[in-house]
């Protein structure tokens, strides 16, 4: 209703995502301050409702079309719930599902949308959101004066612990799927799991990670040698795996894996928010990038602007390659 904050819960392969709890914690805080309810909307997988105990209300909607995520089916269900409940604020994440839903819902529900939100507050009737822009090089403070607002929140912006509660939700309501769910045109074919045969970079104590600065596939040999000498797996930022130079199983970041090694060596990685999201929790981060202003140095503990092509062979030699 008028002061409610609604979170679209996300789940993949039978598990609610961390971002769902991050959003829920924030929703509880904002709804509490404005006298509304924190509402979690759970599409498909009604058996997960018990884990959303931090919400005042869990709305479940189950339908064969919601068995797997498609933008079309999710959008049909969320739009129907929004039209009926008219919350003040809808929270999504800038995950794949969030990127798919936020824009089309902002059209369907006619609500302003702020994306890449990292800070969020209500100032009377105004929603004030702080959002990352230009790859995290700038922040924008945005004021939304509307009875309805959608925010797509960057993962890791709010603590997940605030959204986890062991008690069951105060109320669980089943929402009947709208007829539009019977007319969904997109079909799910299959879920492709990552290649299980490859090394698990999330289990490593030490990672040698490489980014766009490596320049070419042939140059990878250089860091492979160092990784070999250190007995560490080679990881990478998105551009390197997008180019197919390393498999996706090595990708650190939002669209890759979240890693928390005891030490993370970053070579030629500028530190886009997408990457930082996946590795900023490492105990020790050492970054090498020729651009002294690269955002990687804001999360690294130690840094150097030496050329990686000078530093890496020297390191390999000193650790005894």
């Amino acid at each position, binding site marked *: 209703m008028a002061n409610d904050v609604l979170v679209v819960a996300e789940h993949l392969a039978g598990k609610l995502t961390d971002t769902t709890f991050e959003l829920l914690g924030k929703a509880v805080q904002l709804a509490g301050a404005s006298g509304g309810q924190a509402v979690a909307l759970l599409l498909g997988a009604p058996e997960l409702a018990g884990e959303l105990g931090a919400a005042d209300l869990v709305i479940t909607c189950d339908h064969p079309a919601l068995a797997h995520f498609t933008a079309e089916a999710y959008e049909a269900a969320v739009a129907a719930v929004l039209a009926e409940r008219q919350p003040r604020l809808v929270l999504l994440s800038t995950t794949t599902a969030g*990127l798919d839903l936020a824009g089309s819902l902002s059209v369907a529900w006619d609500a302003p949308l702020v994306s890449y939100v990292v800070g969020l507050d209500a100032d009377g009737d105004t929603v004030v959101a702080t959002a990352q822009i230009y790859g995290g090089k700038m922040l924008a403070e945005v004021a939304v*004066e509307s009875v309805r607002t959608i925010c797509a929140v960057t993962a890791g912006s709010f603590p997940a612990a605030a959204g986890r509660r062991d008690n069951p939700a105060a109320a669980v309501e089943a929402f009947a799927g709208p007829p539009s769910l019977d007319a969904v045109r997109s079909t*799910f074919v299959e879920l492709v799991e990552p290649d299980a045969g490859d090394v698990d970079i999330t289990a490593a104590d030490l990672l040698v990670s490489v980014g766009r600065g490596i320049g070419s596939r042939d140059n990878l040999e250089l860091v492979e040698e160092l990784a070999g000498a250190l007995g560490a797996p080679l990881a990478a930022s*998105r551009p390197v795996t997008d180019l197919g130079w390393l498999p996706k199983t090595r990708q650190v970041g939002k669209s890759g894996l979240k890693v928390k090694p005891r030490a993370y060596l970053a070579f030629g990685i500028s530190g886009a928010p997408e990457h930082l999201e996946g590795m900023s929790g490492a105990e020790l981060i050492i970054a090498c990038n020729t651009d002294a202003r690269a955002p990687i*140095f804001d999360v690294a503990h130690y840094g150097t602007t030496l050329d990686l092509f000078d530093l890496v062979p020297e*390191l390999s030699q*000193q*650790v005894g390659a």
Partner: protein
Amino acid sequence: MTAVRIVVALKQVPDLVEELEPSPEGTDVDREYITFVLNEFDDQALEEALLVKEATGAEVVVVALEDSDVDQTLYTALAKGADRAVKVTGAGASGGWLDTHSRAALLAAWLEGQDFDLLITGVQAPDDLDGQLPAIVAGRLGLPHASVVVSVEVKDGAARIRQEFSAGRSAVLEVPLPAVVGVQAARQAPRYAPISRIRQTMQAGGIEEVAVEAPPPASGFTIRRLYPPEKTSHAEMLTGSAGDVAARIVELLRAKGLVRA
């Protein structure tokens, strides 16, 4: 069967390699001295479209709103293999930041008069503060859509796409045409066009200009201020020769028991 027609929407964005400063008004970046380049995700989208063209004989039409240095981007797309290039004029003339909802409105206005099967564009751009183009355009046109797509194949009136989720998982979906796809990465690295061929396309001209009436700003919010994030911490910078720095790094790793030697 007639060839599939693919529209690829391209957008110019500030080159993030350069230093960005807030404008004097403090609500935009200072655009006076920055270079504008093609949004890297749009470059991936173009590559994926060209791969579909090679596989199926599809026609590829690139479209961009009038923006800084956009002609160069459109000619490059033609040189890479796009069949037609369209520049939508009459919008973004102010040269400032244009919200994604307004961009989507302009693009939708042009698309409504077009016969197309697929709109392929980058999954995101570094300045889409009010959301990403693919889902907003799809919402306006009432078309099925998918974002974070890493491959598109077209067959029998449908697109089989691969949509990526976190932790290396992806889903294969089948979406009937027409549809909108937001590309994260093409199946292969974007191709380069030789300078000589770009010059040839420039000499031949061939950018079609279409005027569309500019809609009012549509984001529905006000930017109060734009500012660089406060650095809460910064790395301790290691200086000296490569040998010196390497020795420090080895020492740091050894302190954690991660180097035996």
